[in-house]
């Protein structure tokens, strides 16, 4: 058995946990508290084998993880969500780690307090093909053709990324101070995935503003639902913009 971590929250104690909440593998979610630990951690005890899943079961489990994190959001506090699959050998190891990193975690909680993450996707007219067609190895020019295909792909990606960055910057400018923070990820399919950190009180105004945004004609805007601030909960980037390492620098 192991201790599976869903999220970390500002302390409110066990009474804030919805009764009967169960997560991955049916494990009952509980609040892990300990002397000296000034944070609440929502955890469950589950069998290690429960996490050895792939394919659709993995997707379902990841969504279940998110549902528990959503339940934490519903308490009115904004959690620092743990990445799916975060586990410890036992409660003591979890407490030890969280205690050691309490300052870092509190800084994250302060950063996201009172806010939600809202995803907005800028989707190009044509999604990008995800693989390069390999020429026949019997073709004497196969090597050159393959390298040319890679070069064309890189040029295409740069063009797409640049256009998407431009649209993302226009969107950000149109949203003004409704956005507390932003993280962008440019996906292999050519979609610009934008996560905006928005105050809970401003969600309706944010949605209205995004709806009013008119993208360039070769893009469309796909709006997602508010979620926990996954994009702004990683201290390891050392980047307060929450910028994904694979994406270019944030345009202000």
């Amino acid at each position, binding site marked *: 058995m192991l201790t599976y*971590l869903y*999220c*970390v929250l500002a302390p409110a104690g066990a009474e804030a946990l919805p009764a009967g909440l169960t997560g991955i593998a049916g494990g009952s979610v509980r609040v892990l508290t300990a002397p000296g630990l000034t944070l609440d951690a929502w955890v469950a005890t589950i069998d290690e084998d429960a*996490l*050895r*899943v*792939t*394919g*659709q079961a*993995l*997707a*379902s489990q*990841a*969504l279940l993880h*998110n*549902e528990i994190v*959503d*339940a934490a*959001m519903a308490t009115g506090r904004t959690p*620092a*969500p*743990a*990445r*799916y*699959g*975060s*586990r*410890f*050998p036992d409660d003591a*190891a*979890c407490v030890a*780690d*969280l205690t*050691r*990193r309490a300052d870092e*975690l509190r800084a*994250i909680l302060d950063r996201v307090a009172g806010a939600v993450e809202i*995803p907005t*996707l800028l*989707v190009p007219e044509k999604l990008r093909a*995800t693989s390069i067609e390999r020429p026949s190895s019997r073709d004497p020019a196969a090597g050159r053709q393959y390298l040319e295909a890679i070069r064309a792909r890189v040029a295409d990606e740069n063009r797409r990324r640049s256009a998407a960055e431009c649209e993302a910057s226009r969107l950000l400018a149109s949203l003004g101070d409704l956005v507390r923070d932003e993280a962008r*990820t440019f*996906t*292999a*399919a050519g*979609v610009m*995935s934008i*996560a905006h950190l928005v105050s809970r009180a401003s969600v309706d105004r944010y949605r209205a503003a995004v709806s009013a945004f008119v993208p360039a004609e070769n893009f469309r805007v*796909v709006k*997602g*639902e*508010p*979620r*926990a601030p*996954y*994009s702004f*909960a*990683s*201290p*390891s980037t050392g980047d307060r913009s929450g910028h994904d390492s694979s994406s270019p620098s944030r345009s202000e």
Partner: protein
Amino acid sequence: MSADSDLQPNDEEIEDRQLVLGDLLNHVLDKGVVISGDVIISIADIDLLSVELKLVLSSVQTALEHHQARPDADVSLLRSRSSRR
């Protein structure tokens, strides 16, 4: 437009759902607090691109087909918890 076509999501709506779901999955699998304990990395070998573009498409399509066959069936894969409120 017929009543039936009003009820059926068009291709763009389905693609949008897939994209939103794929984006959520990528964030749950790849973002969030990184703890010092073990992170199950049975997923580490999975290219997230595959998760996004293949597994998710397959999951959503399967769920859609399942839902069309059994309209009372669970289609939770298509909706995040927040969207069900």
